[in-house]
C-alpha cells in the first residue's frame, strides 16, 4: 500500500487556496435533513402503493434502522476522514482506488438525479397550482430550469449562505408537517383522520412489505450527504456527528408523522400513486390555509433538497478531480467565493437533462440504487476501518457503539432492499450495475494511469495494520 503520509506539499506552490471552513452543526443538519425532507412530501408514498399503508409503516421503520446504522457508521468515519468527497474519500483511504472511483460515481449520480427529481417536483407542483386556479396545461419546464439555475447560482456564491438558506427553508418545511398534524387534530382519531376506515390489512402480503423497502428509502435518502461538508465545517469531530445524528432523529419523527397524517386522510390506493401526496392530503382535508402551507412545505422541501444535492454532487466531483480520478481541471476552487465552481457549473446541464426527461419514478429509482450501492460499501468499509486502524491507533472524533452490529444490520438490510428493487425495477437494477461495471473497466484500463497515487493519501495516519 502506498505510504499514507506522503503529500505533495514540497512541490506545491506556497500560496494555496482551499474551501472555506465556516460551517457549524446547524448547517450540517440543514444539509442532511434538507436533502431528505422532500421525501416526506413525495416519493415515500410509492411504498404505500407497493405494500399498502401498514406495509409502508413497517418498511419505514426498518429502513429507519438501516439509516440509523448509516448515520452511526458514517459519523465515525467522516469525523476522522475530514475531506470533501465524503464516502469517496473514505473509500480511497480505507479500501482502494477502484472502490473510491465507484463510490464517487454513486454519489454524483445519486445526488444529481435527486436534484433533477426535486426540480421535477417543483415543476409538477406549479402545474397542480395552476390547475387549481383554473389554468390547465401549464408547461413545467421553465420552473424546473429556474429551480436548478437559482440554486446553482447560490451554491456558486458560497457555502455559508447556501446552507443558511437551506436551514431556514428546511425548518419551515419541517414545521409544515406538524401544521397538518395539528390542524387535523392528530391526537384525536376520527375527527379528521380516519385510520379506522382507511387502514386495510396488507394488500399484497409480506412480499408487498419487502417490495415497499425500495421506496421507503425515500423517507431518509441523502442523510449521508452531511459528510460532504467535512472539509468546510469548523469542528469536524463535533459538528458532523451532532448534525448527522440529530438530523436522523428529526427524520424518524417527520417520517412517522407524515405517514400518520396522510394515511388518515387519503385512501392508500390513491396515495400510492400520487406525485404530491402531502398536497393531496391537504386537498382532502379541505382547509385552504393548510393547503397553502402544504404547498409551501412541498416547494421549500424540494428547493432545500435540490440545494443540498447541488452542493454534495459538486463536492464529490471536485474531490475526484483533485485526485485526478477525473480531469484535474474540475478540481479548481473559486478564489473569491471558495467553492468548487467548475464542478458546480459542469453539473448544471447534466441535472437539467435528467430533469427534462420528466420520468420521475425512473430518476428516483436510479438515485435510490446509486445510494444503496453506497450504503453497501459503508458496511464493508466500517469493518476494514476498524480492522486496519483499531481504536486507539488514530484520533477519532466520534466512536459509534455496538460495533459490528450496526455494520452487519446495514449490510443485511441493503440485501433485502436489493431484492425489493429487483421485484419492481429489475431491468433498471441490471442497467445500473452494467453501467458501473463498464465505468470500472474504463477506470482500471484507462483513467487510473493519470492518478498520482502517493498524492491522494493526505491523512497523517500510521500505516494500517496488516500492511
Amino acid at each position, binding site marked *: 500500500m502506498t505510504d499514507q503520509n506522503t*503529500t*505533495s*506539499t514540497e512541490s*506545491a*506552490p506556497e*500560496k*494555496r*487556496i*482551499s*474551501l472555506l*471552513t465556516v460551517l457549524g452543526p446547524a448547517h450540517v443538519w440543514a444539509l442532511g435533513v434538507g436533502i431528505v425532507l422532500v421525501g416526506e412530501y413525495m416519493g415515500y408514498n410509492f411504498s404505500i402503493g407497493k405494500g399498502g399503508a401498514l406495509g409502508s409503516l413497517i418498511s419505514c421503520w426498518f429502513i429507519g434502522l438501516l439509516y440509523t446504522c448509516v448515520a452511526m457508521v458514517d459519523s465515525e468515519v467522516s469525523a476522522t*476522514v*475530514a*475531506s*470533501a*468527497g465524503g464516502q469517496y*474519500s473514505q473509500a480511497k483511504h480505507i479500501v482502494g482506488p477502484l472502490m473510491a472511483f465507484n463510490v464517487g460515481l454513486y454519489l454524483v449520480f445519486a445526488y444529481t438525479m435527486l436534484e433533477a427529481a426535486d426540480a421535477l417536483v417543483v415543476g409538477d407542483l*406549479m402545474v397542480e*397550482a*395552476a390547475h387549481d*386556479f383554473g*389554468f390547465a396545461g*401549464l*408547461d413545467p419546464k*421553465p*420552473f424546473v*430550469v*429556474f429551480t*436548478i*439555475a*437559482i440554486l*446553482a*447560482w447560490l451554491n*456558486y456564491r458560497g457555502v455559508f449562505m447556501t446552507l443558511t438558506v437551506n436551514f431556514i427553508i428546511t425548518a419551515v418545511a419541517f414545521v409544515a408537517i406538524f401544521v397538518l398534524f395539528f390542524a387535523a387534530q392528530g391526537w384525536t382519531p376520527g375527527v379528521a383522520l380516519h385510520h379506522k376506515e382507511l387502514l386495510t390489512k396488507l394488500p399484497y402480503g409480506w412480499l408487498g412489505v419487502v417490495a415497499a423497502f425500495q421506496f421507503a428509502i425515500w423517507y431518509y435518502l441523502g442523510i449521508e450527504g452531511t459528510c460532504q461538508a467535512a*472539509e468546510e465545517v*469548523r469542528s469536524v469531530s463535533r459538528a458532523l456527528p451532532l448534525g448527522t445524528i440529530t438530523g436522523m432523529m428529526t427524520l424518524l419523527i417527520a417520517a412517522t408523522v407524515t405517514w400518520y397524517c396522510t394515511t388518515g386522510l387519503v385512501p392508500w390506493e390513491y396515495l400510492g400513486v400520487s406525485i404530491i401526496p402531502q398536497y393531496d392530503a391537504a386537498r382532502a382535508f379541505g382547509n385552504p390555509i393548510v393547503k397553502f402551507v402544504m404547498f409551501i412545505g412541498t416547494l421549500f422541501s424540494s428547493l432545500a433538497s435540490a440545494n443540498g444535492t447541488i452542493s454534495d454532487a459538486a463536492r464529490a466531483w471536485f*474531490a475526484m478531480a*483533485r*485526485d485526478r480520478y477525473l480531469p*484535474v*481541471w474540475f*478540481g*479548481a*476552487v*473559486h*478564489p*473569491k467565493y471558495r467553492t468548487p*465552481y*467548475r464542478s458546480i*457549473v459542469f453539473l*448544471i446541464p447534466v441535472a437539467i437533462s435528467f430533469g427534462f426527461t420528466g420520468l420521475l419514478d425512473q430518476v428516483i429509482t436510479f438515485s435510490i440504487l446509486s445510494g444503496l450501492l453506497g450504503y453497501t460499501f459503508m458496511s464493508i468499509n466500517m469493518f476494514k476501518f476498524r480492522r486496519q486502524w483499531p481504536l486507539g491507533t488514530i484520533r477519532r472524533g466520534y466512536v459509534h457503539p455496538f460495533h459490528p452490529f450496526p455494520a452487519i444490520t446495514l449490510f443485511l438490510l441493503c440485501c433485502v432492499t436489493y431484492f425489493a428493487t429487483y421485484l419492481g425495477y429489475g431491468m433498471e437494477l441490471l442497467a445500473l450495475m452494467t453501467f458501473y461495471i463498464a465505468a470500472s473497466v474504463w477506470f482500471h484500463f484507462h483513467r487510473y494511469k493519470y492518478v498520482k497515487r502517493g498524492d*491522494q493519501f*493526505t*491523512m497523517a495516519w500510521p500505516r494500517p495494520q496488516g500492511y
Partner: protein
Amino acid sequence: MNAFEFMGLLCWIGAAVLVLWMVVDFFKVNITYDENYLLSSLEGHDEITEQEKKHRREREARA
C-alpha cells in the same frame, strides 16, 4: 397569457440571467487567475489550525 404562463416566462428570463452571470464570472476567473493557484487546494487542509498557529506565533513574538 395567464399569470402562470407569465411566471413561466419570468423563470426562463431569470434562469438565463443567472446562468449568464455564472458563465461570465467563470471565464473571468479562469482568465484572471493562475491555473496552478486555482488547483492548489489540498484535501483535509486545516485553515483554522494554521491560523491559530500563526496567531500563537505572533503572540509569542510580541511577548
